[in-house]
């Protein structure tokens, strides 16, 4: 394959809405120009970033395929197209930081350090999964890397992140809490309450709004009177940063700046990362709300191939090198699938475990 072919696998697409889409919101209709320009990183770092994005992409393409095979069930929300956001954002964080994410969190979990094996096994529902198969795709958790889910109530993670940051502040720990949420969450009261608490109490929260323009099928302009999300955060006295979420260079720069500011001031910063989801909202979504053409237009801004093209243009990447990295990612996926396949089902006799904490267990 070549660098532009990291597209959908055969046979695993949700049915298309075809030309039935109507009233397509203008907000997503015309993507800005693809990111260009030099990548200001040395080659090893640039290739590590590219590797991150390829690992996400290949893992999720496989997940879509496995969904088609009914190996993965329930809800599966893919991040394909949005890889630059998690990739840039997670690299701005430190090990002591907390991460709170949404139900579209495979990428964040992977880049936070969960093994692809544990993620894949979780999606299979096997007890070797990171949440013992109790959570599934939407509820990936990892205590070791301070990864607090995998929260599937839109906006639900926002107050939690304020509380995690409050705990750090009260304990005198130098850590921040990165909270990821989509632009749909901005309509929830939880967003506004958390924004106010974080600003009022000056809590070290890095609010990362992944604005992919659609809350399921509802375009931003169809659900918000004020579509300037930074203006909403700013109205609470929260500092804001906006970056092109299709450009991993821009995301990392914005996130590093924002993280630095949170660490220096101890207060919150809101980052809006404008991005686009190439796939359906979930595997049940027929995509009636947007035009296929719009999706294709946005794909010309795909974070992987545009980044790869820039690296090639400056001589930091050759096609064989790209293919080798991609093959490596695919091998990791194959291994993860093998691990999940070999995983075991938790005995039904254990059904009632982990509802409450057993005596003697670490709280």
């Amino acid at each position, binding site marked *: 394959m070549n660098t532009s072919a990291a597209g959908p696998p055969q046979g695993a697409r949700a049915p298309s809405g075809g030309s039935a889409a109507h009233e397509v919101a203008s907000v997503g209709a015309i993507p800005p120009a693809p990111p260009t320009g030099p990548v200001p990183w040395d080659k090893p770092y640039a290739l590590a970033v590219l590797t991150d994005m390829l690992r996400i992409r290949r893992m999720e393409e496989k997940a879509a395929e496995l969904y088609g095979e009914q190996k993965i069930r329930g809800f599966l929300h893919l991040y394909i197209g949005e890889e630059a956001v998690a990739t840039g954002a997670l690299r701005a964080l430190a090990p002591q930081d907390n991460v709170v994410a949404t139900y579209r969190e495979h990428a964040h979990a992977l880049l936070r350090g969960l093994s692809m094996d544990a993620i894949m096994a979780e999606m299979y529902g096997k007890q070797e999964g990171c949440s013992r198969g109790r959570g599934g795709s939407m509820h990936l958790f990892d205590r070791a890397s301070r990864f607090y889910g995998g*929260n599937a109530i839109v906006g639900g993670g926002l107050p939690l992140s304020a509380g995690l940051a409050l705990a750090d502040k009260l304990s005198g720990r130098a850590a921040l809490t990165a909270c990821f949420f989509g632009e749909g969450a901005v309509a929830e009261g939880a967003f506004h309450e958390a924004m106010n608490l974080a600003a009022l109490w000056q809590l070290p929260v890095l609010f990362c709004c992944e604005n992919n323009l659609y809350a399921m099928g509802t375009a931003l302009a169809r659900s918000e009177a004020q579509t300037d999300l930074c203006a909403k955060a700013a109205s609470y006295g929260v500092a804001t940063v906006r970056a092109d979420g299709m450009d991993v260079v821009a995301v990392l720069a914005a996130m590093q700046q924002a993280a630095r500011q949170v660490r220096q001031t101890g207060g919150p910063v809101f980052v809006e990362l404008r991005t686009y989801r190439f796939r359906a909202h979930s595997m049940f979504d027929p995509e009636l709300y947007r035009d296929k053409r719009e999706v294709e237009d946005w794909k010309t801004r795909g974070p992987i191939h545009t980044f790869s093209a820039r690296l090639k243009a400056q001589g930091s990447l050759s096609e064989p090198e790209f293919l080798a990295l991609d093959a490596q990612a695919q091998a990791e996926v194959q291994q993860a699938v093998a691990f999940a396949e070999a995983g075991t089902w938790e005995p039904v006799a254990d059904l009632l475990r982990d509802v409450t904490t057993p005596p003697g267990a670490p709280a």
Partner: protein
Amino acid sequence: MSRRVSYREAVREALREALRADPRVFLMGEDVGRYGGTYAVSKGLLDEFGPERIRDTPLSELGFVGAGIGAALGGMRPIVEVMTVNFSLLALDAIVNSAAMLRHMSGGQFSVPLVIRMATGAGRQVAAQHSNSFEGWYAHVPGLRVLAPATIEDARGMLSAALADPDPVLMFEHAQLYNSEGEIPEGAPPVVDICSARVRRAGTDVSLITHGGCLPKALRAAEELAAQGISAEVLDLRVLRPLDDATIMASVRRCRRAVVVDEAWRSGSLAAEVMARIMEQAFFDLDAPLARVCSEEVPIPYARHLEEAALPQVAKIVAAVQSLMGAAP
């Protein structure tokens, strides 16, 4: 040696003790600091512990209960006060979808050692939106422990046990109880468990199974019944989830008749759950059908006479028992 304290003072003493004992403990909620607590429970604590640990919140129940969950995940031992159970509905998502489920959906990785206290119940003419008893709803949810301290001893003793629990604990303090008084021992605070029901008055003819604000009413009803020659046992559930089936069944088997007294509405109530369990576990020990006294199925009215008519009252309990005794074989 014992001393006489109010329920309010008992809760305050418990809070003070917890705050002194563990730097991870802090109290947050609406008007817990400068105002001194809506029911004056936290009065004076701000002066002793400062605004970081007696933390006034905006009117953001979802936000600050969610923040309490986050702080618990982050290693603190928060006590979140919600002004009334009606307002807790604004935080229902955080309590049910997050606090109760996080341990399970993380495969046992994250516990939520959070205590949420709130006032519950009617009887003060504060009308429909400040008078409900939704503790039974919370008792529906696996992952939560639900407590209803009804005595001074429990008001004083339950908090430290709740804080020692690694999982979320909800404490329902009936607003009518704050002014009640009772004796507790001098010196060391009473040690109570948060897993068992307790017989508050022994009897042999009928078991009155109740909790919270209905406990004093059930005890008065038992007095009246005694005067009529009926020996009523009064069982205080104390812990609404998990229910202490063994103690409930022991009381029912002893008395062979039972009336459940619950200030919640009857339909789908905790009373219904208790009765169903008795039917499952002690049906053949009964000498009469079970009965219950609950609130009438109407939003709690403002007018005093209508409010009184809507709630369980001593006379209603007495009448229910008399009717049961009449139905006895």
